[in-house]
């Protein structure tokens, strides 16, 4: 019987510090056993449990896209025991990954539609996975216009800065990068909160699906903007966070109503969330 609690052993290949305050690092993992990589076939939106023996496990969204072969990437915020230990590890160290877990963004429903992505802070990780996936030549034709609004507190807190500039230069994706406040006079992008920039830059909900991923306060103020534009609750997609342990819908910790965030989520449409008790 396959043991769903046993992680695949991986090696840390590379660690990049993403933000100025050094609290966010992107880890590139390589599977020790090649068959494990095949078994770990994932879809953007999913997450995995990063496991460090002797410390514990943490559920983190997958930041790499399945179109990137040979490795998986996760961006981890230093918050507690496990993430703190992970931040102190070096390339070459070994640990484990369990997954892929959870559901994914509704790619089937998104085909043939305009895709609006609204991200804030370090919740942008699975959105990176989604953007790289969509921009891949095999996938790009499946989607219409792609518009991205991504904001952070200040320029130093933006993730994936090199990739952001590369995407900005492309003509098959509209990037609107914003910061809450910038002291740098050479800042060439927007200044303002994500909900405000969303209101300015997103002009239509026609044939569009919106994916919103960010801190609760950002979601709270972006939702009404999207609804005013005409996005119905079925076409506003959110990715939730909850405290998790097993990640496979057995330990009972992450339930919202009769759904498990780790198994029936973390991706939910606003329409689905309206049927559930507001306990998240």
């Amino acid at each position, binding site marked *: *019987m*396959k*043991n*769903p*609690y*046993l*992680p695949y*052993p991986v090696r840390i290949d590379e660690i990049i510090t993403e933000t100025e305050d050094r609290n966010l690092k992107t880890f590139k993992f390589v599977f020790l056993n090649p068959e494990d990589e095949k078994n770990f076939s994932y879809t953007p939106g999913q997450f995995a449990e990063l*496991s*460090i*023996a*002797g*410390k*514990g*496990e*943490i559920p983190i969204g997958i930041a790499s896209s399945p179109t990137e072969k040979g490795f998986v990437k996760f961006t981890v915020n230093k*918050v*507690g025991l496990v*993430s703190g230990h992970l931040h102190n590890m070096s390339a070459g*160290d*070994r*640990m*484990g990954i369990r997954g892929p877990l959870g559901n994914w963004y509704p790619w089937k429903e998104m085909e043939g539609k305009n895709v609006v992505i609204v991200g804030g802070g370090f919740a942008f990780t699975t959105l990176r996975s989604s953007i790289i996936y969509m921009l891949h030549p095999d996938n790009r034709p499946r989607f219409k216009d792609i518009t991205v609004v991504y904001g952070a507190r200040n320029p130093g807190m933006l993730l994936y800065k090199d990739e952001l500039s590369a995407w900005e230069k492309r003509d098959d994706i509209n990037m609107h990068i914003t910061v809450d406040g910038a002291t740098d006079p050479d800042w060439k992008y927007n200044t303002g909160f994500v909900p405000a920039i969303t209101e300015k830059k997103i002009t239509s909900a026609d044939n569009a699906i919106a994916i919103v991923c960010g801190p*609760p306060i950002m979601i709270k103020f972006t939702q009404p903007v999207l609804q005013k534009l005409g996005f119905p609750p079925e076409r506003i997609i959110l990715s939730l*966070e*909850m*405290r998790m*342990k*097993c990640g*496979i*819908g*057995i*330990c*009972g*910790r*992450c*339930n919202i*109503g*009769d759904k498990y965030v780790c*198994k029936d989520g973390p991706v939910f449409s606003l329409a689905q969330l309206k*049927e*559930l*008790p507001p*306990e*998240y």
Partner: protein
Amino acid sequence: MIKKLFTGSDWVDALKKTGDLYKIFVPVREGDFHNFRPLEQGTKPNFDFYNTRLSPKSIVYPQSERMFESLNDPEAPDKGILKEAAKDYAPRAIVGIRPCDAQAFQIVKRNFDNPEYRDPWWVRRFESTILVGLGCNDPCPTCFCSSVGGGPFHEEYLDVMLYDLGDKFLAKSITEKGEEFLSKVIGGSPADDTALKKAEALGPAAIEKITSTLSSDKLKDKTVTGLFNAPFWDEVAFSCINCGTCTFLCPTCWCFDIQDEVYGKQADRIRNWDTCMSPLFTLEGSGHNPRENKFQRVRQRFMHKLKYYPDKYNNGVQCSGCGRCVRYCPVNIDIRQVAKLMNEY
């Protein structure tokens, strides 16, 4: 189908003799109450009880269990790689389990054994367990198994049924697994008609004695958000002290926590029973806690048992009517009263 009669002591002797084939668990008196313990040389089984204090769920699902082991030694070549801890799946039998506790295993099985994921330890241990039930001649005033799909002599979830005829036990096999088990319990005599008639009469007599009910018939038609926002949760939750008594004693509760512990050069991943009553249960790393108030946690427990679980699995409430939470809650929060409030809302 095997039907045999044993005297009390013959039954215990016969069970002892199956020692090589099955690990037998029997109820044993410990101070003021009973618990299931392995039947060994010096064990004195005691079937004169209403129900054990702790449910037998710990035989299939121990309170603390080592999941994986790994070496914490920097020199070791496989340092940090988790390996499965050794487990014992030898056949075992819980003798004297009450039908409510047996029903509880089926309720919990839907969680641990589902199409997407199977918990290897729970599933394999449960598959190697035979449930030899003891029908309740005298249901307690706090028993309400018959309102939740069970009964004092309900056979559906058992492999063998034991009838306590006073001077003798009548053992009747129900499933194939139970028949195989009974065939290995050597001794006793074939059951005669008088004994059989006496046994058959026990069930209906017992059902008459049940006075407690749990009303849940109207819950399916209510909306989750309606019940969730009901005004009575503050009052229900006031006295709760957020301990784990109800969840740990309950045979249908299954939540657990996963912890890593290091001792010298060994690092273990352990799982422990956990309780949704604890304020830490949903505390996130960022500090945000969706259930930081007591009434939210108390509401979660009752909504999960009486609404979320039935909605999810369409197969009754997550309660087998054993009454332990009613008897042992330190502040006397009564699920029967809460269910009534929810059902009538």
